[in-house]
């Protein structure tokens, strides 16, 4: 069985990469295949990488307040490029109301500060039960 492949991505200009790196390591230690984009990616670059790397899910880390622009944009581009099945989830500094809005447009779970990493791992295992 193919391992679950996850792209962890930092869109926009936000340089806060502590969370993205910690989550990437935790997912790798949990047995997933993890690709990290590094900083300063445009939504275009992220969608492109997700498709080329043939990932199951994209985790976006945004602490800059630009989540309402960047999440929908990555999701739109994935659809446009014929990969609507790739799950987009994420985390960062995201007020509750904004989380609700993003859930309405089909965004996967959003994890706020203080989330234990096993919670993220469990979420992904639940989403892809036949792959773990």
């Amino acid at each position, binding site marked *: 069985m193919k391992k679950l492949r996850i792209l962890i991505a930092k869109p926009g200009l936000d340089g806060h990469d502590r969370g993205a790196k910690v989550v990437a390591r935790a997912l790798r230690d949990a047995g997933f295949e993890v690709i990290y984009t590094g900083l300063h990616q445009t939504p275009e670059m992220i969608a492109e990488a997700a498709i080329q790397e043939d990932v199951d899910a994209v985790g976006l880390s945004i602490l800059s307040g630009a989540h309402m622009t960047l999440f929908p944009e990555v999701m739109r581009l994935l659809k446009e490029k014929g990969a609507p099945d790739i799950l987009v989830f994420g985390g960062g500094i995201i007020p509750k109301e904004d989380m609700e809005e993003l859930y309405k447009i089909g965004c996967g779970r959003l994890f*706020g500060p203080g989330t234990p990493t096993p919670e993220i791992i469990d979420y992904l295992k639940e989403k892809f039960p036949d792959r773990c």
Partner: protein
Amino acid sequence: MTIDRISEEQKRWQNLVNQGKPDQFTTVSGIPVQIIYTPADIPDFDYLRDLGFPGEYPYTRGIRHNMYRGRIWTMRQFSGFGTAQDTNARYKFLLAHGETGLSVAFDFPTLYGRDSDDSMSKGEVGKCGVAVSSLEDMETLFEGIPLGEVSTSMTINGPAAVLWAFYIVTAEKQGVPSEKLRGTIQNDILKEYIAQKSWLFPPEPSLRIITDIMAFGAKHVPKWNTISISGYHIREAGSTAAQELAFTLKDGMTYVEAGIKAGLDVDTFAPRLSFFFNSHLDFFEEIAKFRAARRIWAREMRNTYHAKKPESWLLRFHTQTAGCTLTAQQPENNIVRTAFQALAAVLGGTQSLHTNSMDETWALPTEKAVLIALRTQQLIAEEAGVVNCIDPLGGSYYVEALTNKLEEQAYEYFQKIDALGGMVKAIEQGYPQREIAEAAYRYQRAVDEGRRVVVGVNKYLLEGEKLEIPILKIDPRVEQEQCERLRRLRQRRDNARVHRALDDLKSACAGKDNVMYPILAAVRAYATLGEICGAMKEVFGTYAEPPMF
């Protein structure tokens, strides 16, 4: 009473008591802590050599003779959001409530030297700080605030020269000469590569711009701190206290070496170097860190870099409480966390302080939240009685032993970095970045496994907790309005003059002339931040970090 006798008695006593599991009792950075400390734990302690008196070498106890009796630390709340006009109103609010210095938080596009209408800026304008794309925005930001009277700190690094030029020209227009200006630009590019990641150019040209800034400041803006060498972001990225201390001081030494190599006399610029540290959870470890920092810097400046003026030996620093320790859960608890951290900074002898607001894991702070944060400082300054006596923990066996320990760990890191060829080489090899990422992961594992308690997060949770504090929203119209303002500015100004100024700037970048003069000329012509940084990138190139985790 000999040390040996105390040591024997200490062992005898320790054998009598149940000390618990050693790995349960460490500092937040993982330094093992004994159950008790005695003179036997600081056997070589020499009061005059190791501590001395405040305001005198080696400054362990503080950099001023009378410390807070002479003047309370500057209460300086880092703030900025939305448009320059929104932030201007927040500054006036804070000053009216007893704040004593300003501190500008810029949005991400500004931190990266990009204009609000740049394609990469989409969605980020005014979100994480205030958008400042031109001299016009800076004039609005400080409208009605007399720049000859306040001191202003600006957290700006890659494009620091440009934002500083905006400020200098804004003051000029208010009739305030640059000689009178007081404040700080962060301008610490090395920690950008290490931790904060808002860089523009590669390390070598970045260091050249910094030496240009130091030379310009020494000549024209003598009261300005031209670099604030920062451990804050290193710590926020997950480092230990010792890593914060070591990497920050090593960055500082690298700037000193760059200045000396550029032909500057160390005593002309060293007195204008200042520092910026984090105040994290572990109360005594933080106090020890601040004390060790002062002692190491004084020694290195005097003995290694042969600075002759005592002002060059002083480590002056700003402190911010640790944003990364705030919790989204039960946010009111953050008020208390911040108060402990602020107290550690004061007992550690800070010159200036920012206290975080309780709501900052959700958004930028509301007016109410920031007022409580400011009041926390005022309570410490005026109610708690801690400002009466300098370095009240000096002489504590524990605090002295911990100060020595942090100093020792810092020197171990200095040696490792030297072995890699110095800080720039170490950064290029990803060494400090890796050390920090390791520490961050260790910390997260400890929290996930419940070995490290975070109140409200992995212990004492509230079932079905709902967020009950108001959150600041940034109006999405800010971005449109900001782009529109820029469009009008580009129409209105003398574009031929802008182009000439940018060409002159490129020539200075390609040659050896100080870049500050052509930057100022471009700013006066209302060239935008993005245009000026763009011109410089054409000559200096850009920097990209290889992704690693």
